[in-house]
């Protein structure tokens, strides 16, 4: 699990440091820099992979950009205004990776160059590249990525690098979840846009049959889809589906609670999109092959406020069940989400993202323990506070 993130001079993030928990929810106005924050970790993931270029960025759900877009464009002090972008993080086992990247604003090369690199575990340096040694090595190839192949698989540095490499930003969309379009970012268990959902649900249900604890969690998914008696994945040839619909091998199948037996089966093509978003989140939280650290941008989309609140609550439980192997960075706009956050759990964290008077993105952890103890009555919920501006993180409109 990542515990600390430090970014400098990346897009609107002039200088950002934050302590991460297991579930991290970022709220803020549109354009406040939430996606930039998620992307900063994606760039570090590409750097841990060993090459930072459009292909490795896209693979992680990061919007590729030319250096003039990536490097912060604010007027900075001479001390702040160096030519490179800095990304650094620490993992739970004491491992840390720090990378500075550069690419000239004019005539940039396809791959970013490593200026410095430092992979450490505690006081032990695993790989290092300094500004003086940079010229002797291939500057477009990450040194830390190469060094880790020499380490045993249970080494803390390997765990950190694997976690960073597998990090991706998921942003589901309805056509991909329904299987109407191909997910260009296909992954196992699900693609970044939601492709391969039927197969992933099938695998999750199969795993739940062998694991009673997982079965209990899957039952909680069923509770969230209240109009359906059950869901499963079925061969597309065995379910009622329009001949015009794109057919994959498997489709999601829901059994409607109210329709007549024999005519009560709906596919993911016809069913409520909200149910598909819930299954998507459940797969990422519970599937054995889901990456240990992921981001979901706008994870509350298409959900009724009450449902979004419950999904948030359940997601915190589902990730906790993965024994420290399920870290999530989430962005959301639905205030009801906040009422499903168990903030008394220190591993669940809420952050407000805002732009300050200079336009820089600033991140603030919202820790309400003291304020909630002093609140006048139970009528003040987090969602109400957010809508009223008491948490910040709303636009001045």
């Amino acid at each position: 699990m990542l515990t600390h993130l430090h970014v400098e001079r990346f897009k609107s993030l002039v200088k950002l440091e934050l302590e991460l928990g297991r579930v991290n929810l970022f709220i803020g106005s549109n354009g406040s820099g939430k996606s930039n924050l998620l992307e900063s970790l994606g760039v570090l993931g590409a750097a841990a992979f060993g090459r930072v270029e459009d292909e490795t960025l896209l693979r992680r759900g990061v919007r590729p950009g030319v250096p003039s877009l990536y490097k912060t464009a604010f007027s900075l002090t001479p001390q702040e205004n160096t030519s490179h972008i800095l990304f650094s993080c620490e993992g739970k086992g004491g491992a840390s990776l720090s990378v500075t990247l550069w690419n000239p604003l004019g005539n940039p090369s396809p791959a970013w160059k490593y200026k410095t690199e430092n992979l450490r575990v505690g006081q032990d340096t695993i790989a290092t590249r300094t500004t003086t040694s940079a010229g002797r090595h291939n500057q477009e190839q990450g040194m830390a990525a190469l060094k880790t192949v020499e380490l045993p698989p249970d080494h803390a540095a390997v765990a950190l690098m694997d976690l960073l490499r597998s990090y991706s930003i998921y942003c589901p969309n309805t056509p991909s979840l329904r299987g109407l379009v191909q997910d260009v970012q296909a992954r196992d268990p699900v693609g970044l846009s939601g492709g391969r959902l039927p197969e992933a649900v099938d695998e999750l249900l199969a795993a739940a049959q062998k694991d009673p604890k997982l079965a209990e969690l899957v039952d909680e998914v069923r509770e969230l889809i209240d109009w359906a008696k059950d869901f499963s994945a079925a061969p597309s040839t065995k379910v009622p589906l329009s001949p015009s619909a794109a057919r994959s091998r498997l489709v999601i199948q829901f059994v409607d609670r109210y329709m007549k037996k024999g005519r009560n089966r709906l596919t993911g093509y016809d069913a409520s999109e909200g149910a598909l978003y819930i299954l998507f989140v459940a797969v990422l939280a519970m599937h054995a092959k889901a990456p240990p650290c992921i981001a979901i941008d706008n994870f509350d989309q298409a959900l009724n406020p009450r449902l979004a609140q419950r999904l948030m609550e359940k997601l915190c439980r589902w990730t906790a069940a993965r024994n420290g192997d399920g870290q999530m960075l989430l962005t959301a706009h639905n205030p009801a989400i906040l009422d499903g956050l168990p903030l008394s759990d220190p591993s669940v964290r809420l952050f407000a993202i805002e732009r300050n008077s200079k336009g820089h993105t600033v991140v603030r952890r919202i820790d309400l323990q003291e304020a909630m103890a002093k609140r006048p009555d139970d009528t003040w919920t987090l969602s109400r506070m957010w809508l009223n501006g008491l948490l910040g993180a709303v636009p001045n409109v």
Partner: protein
Amino acid sequence: MSDLRIALVAEGPTDRIVIQAALRAMLGARAFVLQQLQPEGSLAFGGLGGGWGGVYRWCKQAAKRGSGSVSRDALLFQSFDILLVHLDVDVASSSYRAANVAQDSTDAPLPCDRPCPPASAASDALRSVVLSWCGESHTPTNVVLCLPSRCTETWVLNALFPHASVRHDLECFAGPETWLAQQPVAKRLRKHQGSYLARADDICAAWAGVTSSLSEAKRFQGELLAAS
């Protein structure tokens, strides 16, 4: 030094633009986050509360949250360092009934206008009224009152037209908004967010001149800097 976090309760969005420009000038290199607050409400049930009636409703809600006083509103001050309450001094000539506000027994009476000059007379009287809405007897250390005389547009007029021959005691001039809207097209400033945003940098650059010639702007600056 960390960014200063300022919660703003203001009559309208153009007031916020002017205040933000003034804050940029006052705080210089120190970055701040400004968040405009609104009273809770739905249009279906009578509006979201703009104008001074909205400032009144917000102060009453916050005082209730703070067990009677805004400065004890823990839910507000867990996120903000300073609460900035803005009200045009011309509100001193209004009545509660005019803003469809149901006055309660703790609210100081309106109208409370005073002869101008001096501009400070009506401003002082309105200060007591705003503090009564906030459940405060004195201005708390974490609250700053921003009461332009006669209104925010007085500051805009002075910033953008420092040599205009309107009247010597500009803070007693009742029609700055109309004056700004009646200028030749190239200089005209209508009360729209876009027009104000386009001139925000000019207002910021001219702020020192505004505080040197307008007493209530100087008072606002002094109190803001003391609180920050």
